[in-house]
C-alpha cells in the first residue's frame, strides 16, 4: 500500500464537512453548549463563582479599604445599621464589622462544602464501584453499613459526634464525609449493576480486558455525569447541614465565623439586630439555591435522553 496515498485519504477524511452536527459532537461539548444557553443555570454558576472569589480573595482588600478587622471588638460601634461609614453591612453586638465576618464565614462554609462533598464523592464512588462490580460478601457488608447508617438521620449522628468531640472545621469535614457517602454509594452501585451487564462491557470482557480496565475505562466514564450532578447537590445540602449545626452552636465554634454560627448570636437581638439575621441567611439561601440550580442544569445538560 502506498503510504502517501493513505495519508492523503486520512487528510480528506478529516476535512470532510460534517453532515449531522449532532452525531460528531461529544457529550461534554454538547452539554457545554446546552448550559451556555440555559440562562438560569448560567446565572447560578456566575453567582457561585463570584461568591467564592469574593470570599477567598476579598477579605484583604476590604480590610485595607475600609480599615476593618474581622475580630476587632469595639463596644462604641455596637449595632451600627448597614450603610454606616466604614461598615457597609453594619456591625454586630460586639461592634465587629459584618461584611468582613460574612466573607470569612463564607470562606469556611464554602471550603467545608467543597472539600466534604469531594470526599463524599470519592468514598461513595470507590465503595459503590466495588460493591456493584464485585458483589458477594463485600457488597453485603457495604449495603448493611449503608442501610444501618441511613436509618439514623444525619443531623442526629452529627449531634452524637459533636457531643463527644467539639469539632474543628477540619474534623467537621471528615465527619460530614463519613456520614454522607451512602446516598452516592447506593446510586453508583445501582448504575454499576446495570452497566456491568450491558453488551459493550461484556464485549470488552470477552476481549480479555482486566477488572481494572473494565472499571476505570468502561464503567466509570459512564457514571461520571451522575457523579458531577450528585456532587453539586451534595455541596448544597452540606452548606445547609453545616449552617444548621453551627446555628445550634455545635459546629464551627466562635469566634471563627461561619454563616450558621453568626445567626446563633444574632437571634437574641431580634429588634436591634435585624440586619444581623437577614444577611447571613440570604447568603446561605443563595448559595444553596445556586448549587441546586447548577445541579439541575447539569442533569438536564448531561442527560443523553434529552436529544431524543
Amino acid at each position: 500500500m502506498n503510504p502517501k496515498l493513505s495519508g492523503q485519504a486520512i487528510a480528506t477524511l478529516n476535512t470532510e464537512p460534517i453532515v449531522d452536527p449532532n452525531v460528531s459532537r461529544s457529550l461534554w461539548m454538547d452539554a457545554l453548549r446546552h448550559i451556555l444557553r440555559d440562562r438560569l443555570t448560567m446565572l447560578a454558576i456566575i453567582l457561585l463563582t463570584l461568591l467564592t472569589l469574593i470570599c477567598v480573595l476579598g477579605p484583604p482588600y476590604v480590610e485595607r479599604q475600609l480599615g476593618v478587622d474581622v475580630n476587632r471588638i469595639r463596644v462604641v460601634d455596637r449595632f451600627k445599621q448597614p450603610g454606616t461609614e466604614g461598615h457597609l453591612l453594619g456591625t454586630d453586638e460586639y461592634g465587629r464589622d459584618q461584611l468582613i465576618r460574612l466573607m470569612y464565614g463564607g470562606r469556611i462554609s464554602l471550603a467545608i462544602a467543597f472539600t466534604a462533598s469531594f470526599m463524599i464523592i470519592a468514598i461513595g464512588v470507590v465503595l459503590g464501584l466495588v460493591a456493584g462490580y464485585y458483589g458477594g460478601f463485600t457488597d453485603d457488608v457495604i449495603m448493611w453499613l449503608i442501610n444501618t447508617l441511613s436509618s439514623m438521620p444525619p443531623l442526629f449522628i452529627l449531634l452524637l459526634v459533636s457531643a463527644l468531640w467539639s469539632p474543628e472545621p477540619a474534623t467537621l469535614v471528615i465527619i460530614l464525609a463519613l456520614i454522607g457517602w451512602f446516598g452516592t454509594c447506593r446510586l453508583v452501585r445501582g448504575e454499576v449493576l446495570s452497566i456491568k451487564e450491558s453488551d459493550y462491557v461484556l464485549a470488552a470482557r470477552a476481549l480479555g480486558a482486566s477488572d481494572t480496565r473494565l472499571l476505570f475505562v468502561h464503567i466509570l466514564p459512564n457514571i461520571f455525569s451522575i457523579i458531577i450532578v450528585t456532587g453539586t447537590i451534595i455541596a448544597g445540602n452540606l452548606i445547609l447541614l453545616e449552617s444548621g449545626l453551627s446555628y445550634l452552636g455545635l459546629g464551627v465554634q466562635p469566634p471563627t465565623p461561619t454563616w450558621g454560627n453568626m445567626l446563633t448570636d444574632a437571634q437574641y437581638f431580634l429588634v436591634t439586630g435585624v440586619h444581623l439575621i437577614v444577611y447571613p441567611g440570604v447568603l446561605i439561601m443563595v448559595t444553596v439555591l445556586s448549587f441546586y440550580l447548577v445541579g439541575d442544569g447539569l442533569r438536564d445538560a448531561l442527560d443523553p435522553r434529552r436529544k431524543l
Partner: protein
Amino acid sequence: MSQYIIRRILQGIPTFFGITLIAFILMSVAPGDPISVITFNPSSGDTQSAERMRRQLGLNEPPLMQYVYWLIGNDWTQYDSNGDGIKDSPGIRRGFLRGDLGTSIKHRRPVADLLKQRIPATLQLTFTALILGYGMGILLGILAAVSHRSWIDQFVRIISVVGNAVPEFWLGLLLIIFFSIRLDVLPMSGMRSISNRGEFDLWDTASHMILPVTVLSLNTIAFVSRFTRAELLEVLEQDFIRTARAKGLKDQVVWWKHALRNALLPVATFLGPGIGTLLAGAVIVERVFAWPGLGSLIVDGVFQRDYPLVMGSVVIVSVMFILGVLLSDILYAVLDPRIRLK
C-alpha cells in the same frame, strides 16, 4: 401479605443492632469516661466510690460485655462489688431492650422518663407538619401538573426549589421578627401562654404551633409537590391513560381513578424517610421557637456532655425512623399489589 410484613420486619432487626452498635462504639471511643463526668467534684475526690460505681455499671468489663450489658442489662448476673475478684452482688441495669436507657447525668433521672415526657411535644409538631406538608405538597403538585407549563407550574417550581434551599432556623427567625415582633399577632416561643395553666385552649395551642409547623413543613411541601408533579406527568404519558381517554372516559375519571392513584403510590413510600427529615428539622425548629420537645432535650444534652441522654435519644429517634420506614413500606405493599408479589 403477612409473609411480606414478617420479612420486612426481620430485615429491620440487623439495622437496629447496627445502630445500637455504632452508637455504642462512638460512646466508648469518646474522650472521658462517664464516671468522671458523674463524680466530678474537686472538693471530695472520692476514688473509692467512683471505683465501686464503675464496677456497678460494669465499666471495668471488656467492651463486648459492656455492649451486652448496655443492651440487655446486668441484673441477671453478679458483679464484683468490692474488687476482691469474687462476683457477689446482682447487677442493677436492665438494659436498653428492656427499657432502661441509663440515667441522665444532668437531670439525675432515667433517660426513658425524660424521653417519655418530651416525645409527645415533638410528635405533636412533626405529625402536624407531616400532614400539612403532604396535604399541601400533593395539592400543589397536582395543580402544577394540571396546569403544566403555565405560570402556576412555574410558581410551584419556585416554591419547591426555594423551599428546599431555605435554612429552617433562618426562616423561623424571620417569621418571628415579622409576626411576633413587628405585627405582634403570634407568640414567638413556647407551647402555651404563661397564663395558661395546662387546660386545653384551642387557640392558644394553635397560635403557638402556626410558626413552627409552617417552618417545619416547608421542606416536605417542597419535596412532595415536586415529586407529585413529576410522577403525575410521567403517569399521564402512559399507555393506559391514553386507552382510558380513547374509550371515552371523562377527564375527571381519568385524573382521579387512573392517574392520581398511580402517581401517589411512590409518593407514599417517602412517608417514612420524610419522618426522619422532619425529626431532624424538629431539632432545629424546637431550638428556634423554644419548643419543649425531644430536640431541645438532645441539644442541651450535647452541650452538657450528657452522654447517656444523647445516646438514648439518638437510638430512640433512629428506632422511630426505622418504624416509620417500615410502616410506609407496609402501606405501600397494601396499596400496590405488585410489591408484595415480588
